[in-house]
């Protein structure tokens, strides 16, 4: 058939690129993750081991990094949700004249180079940074607060980075809530707070879930911001992978951790999309 030939012609260049520079490289991580790394000698190719995977859960250091990554993901997601909802609400339900400027102010940080945004937080949070200088000048503190290389810095930075995604998801969800339904609830005697709790919030639940999944997955995969604000000591999974490849040259451990991370994100997205589909079917 003619269209099949055209289709093959149109698709094959990209499929070839993705196969050669995405699928095969990822699959090649599999054997590496079952090989043994011997310090000083390199990767042993003669023996297979599951030790690299076991270590992720058994080793105290690895376990701490994994739990920290997950905890950070959850906390950043929650912060984005709490801060993002009012913004989305103002954009959708506020004065229509402010809608475009406010939307652009949300998109702008998203389009801005990630490294620049993270750098901005370093300028603010570092020991001799804007915030510490200001607080010292005001006489509120004597010695700089430790705002970087710890949970505080990562929370602030990551929340800032991923907040726009959450806002945009919530804007899309709020736009789908018919105003008549809210009006109906208030004519039936609901207070504004009750209208929000009983009508708006449940109707935007799919958007809340989609936004939360997105922010969570992005947060646990993030490398740049955790590295820039957390430094080489306050590790998450992505920065640990980076170090294992670049500094320690322990590729087997790094690839096992990579797999754990990739499988987690795929599973989370897959399960959530199945759940959303089922809910859509119920509605």
């Amino acid at each position, binding site marked *: 058939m003619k269209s099949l030939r055209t289709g093959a012609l149109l698709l094959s260049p990209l499929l070839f690129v993705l196969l050669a520079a995405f699928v095969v490289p990822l699959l090649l991580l599999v054997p590496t993750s079952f090989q043994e790394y011997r310090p000083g000698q390199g990767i042993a190719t003669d023996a297979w081991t599951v030790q690299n995977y076991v270590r992720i859960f058994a080793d105290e250091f690895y376990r701490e990094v994994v739990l920290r990554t997950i905890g950070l993901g959850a906390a950043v997601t929650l912060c984005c949700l709490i801060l993002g909802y009012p*913004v989305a609400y103002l954009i959708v339900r506020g004065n229509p004249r402010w809608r475009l400027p406010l939307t652009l102010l949300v998109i702008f940080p998203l389009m801005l180079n*990630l*490294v620049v945004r993270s750098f901005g937080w370093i300028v603010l949070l570092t020991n001799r940074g*804007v915030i510490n200088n200001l607080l010292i000048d005001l006489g509120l503190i004597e010695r700089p607060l430790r705002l970087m290389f710890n949970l505080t810095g990562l929370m602030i930075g990551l929340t800032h980075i991923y907040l726009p995604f959450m806002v945009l998801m919530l804007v899309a969800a709020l736009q789908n809530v018919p105003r008549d339904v809210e009006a109906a609830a208030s004519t039936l005697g609901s207070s504004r707070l009750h209208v929000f709790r009983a009508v708006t919030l449940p109707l935007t639940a799919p958007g809340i879930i989609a936004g939360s999944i997105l922010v969570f997955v992005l947060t*646990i995969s993030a*490398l740049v911001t955790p590295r820039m604000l957390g430094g080489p000591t306050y590790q998450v999974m992505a920065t640990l992978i980076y170090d294992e490849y670049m500094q320690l040259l322990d590729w087997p451990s790094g690839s096992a951790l990579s797999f754990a991370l990739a499988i987690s994100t795929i599973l989370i997205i897959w399960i959530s999309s199945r759940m959303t589909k089922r809910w859509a079917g119920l509605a």
Partner: protein
Amino acid sequence: MNEQRPGLAVSSLALLVILFLQIPVIVVMLASFSETSYLTIPPQGWTLKWFEAVLTDRTYIDAIKNSLILAVGSTVISLVLGVAASYAIFRKMMPGSEALTSLLMAPLIIPSVVIGVALLQYFTLVGMRGSFFVLLIAHVVITVPYIVRSALASLSGIDLAVEEAARVLGANGFTTFRLVTLPLIKPGLVAGALFSFVTSMENVPVTIFLAGPRDTTLPILIFTSVEMGVNPSVAAVSTLLIIATAAVLLAAERWTGFHRFV
């Protein structure tokens, strides 16, 4: 009936959050004009010397050049390959269009750092690590999902009959695509290309594993230089990026109503 508008408390909170989103931007810009090499608010003394330092520094110039070549190159390749593939998928020219779409979008789901290490290992194995071509292909892999996403979305918004009309009026398949389909999906593609450009331009997790010593990009330069501490010339180059981003965003908004595509 009294329209339900957000109350004062909600509005103020929302505006504060939007301000929070701009704070690093403002701080970086102020810092870049500051006389002192450490950063204070308000800046002590105004100067353009950090900008001069950046624009006369070969390291920065080369990094900016590399970043632009990489971003433009990968976006153009992604556009050509991505639009062709999306069109074939949209027209259901091949069976399994859903699986194909998932494959094309997969680089968006796999964490970048994982793609980075996978490519590092693979290209080391085949002995091509450090080549600029490899870096370019890697950027195509991470940018093409944005093109595919916007192309598929734009294509689904076209009235099929419009293409049929062109065919009946004597246009062959390619002419129809060139004169009718392409102009109609152009706004979406501009938005997708912008995302692709931005993604390539800011990428660290893939680039850092693959870039040869002469192929350092701007984000890699900033990323590695902050490990040495805060440097005002980083603020200056960041300010340049901020201004460029704002200009491009406003231009894209004027041309295509960009915010609709985000």
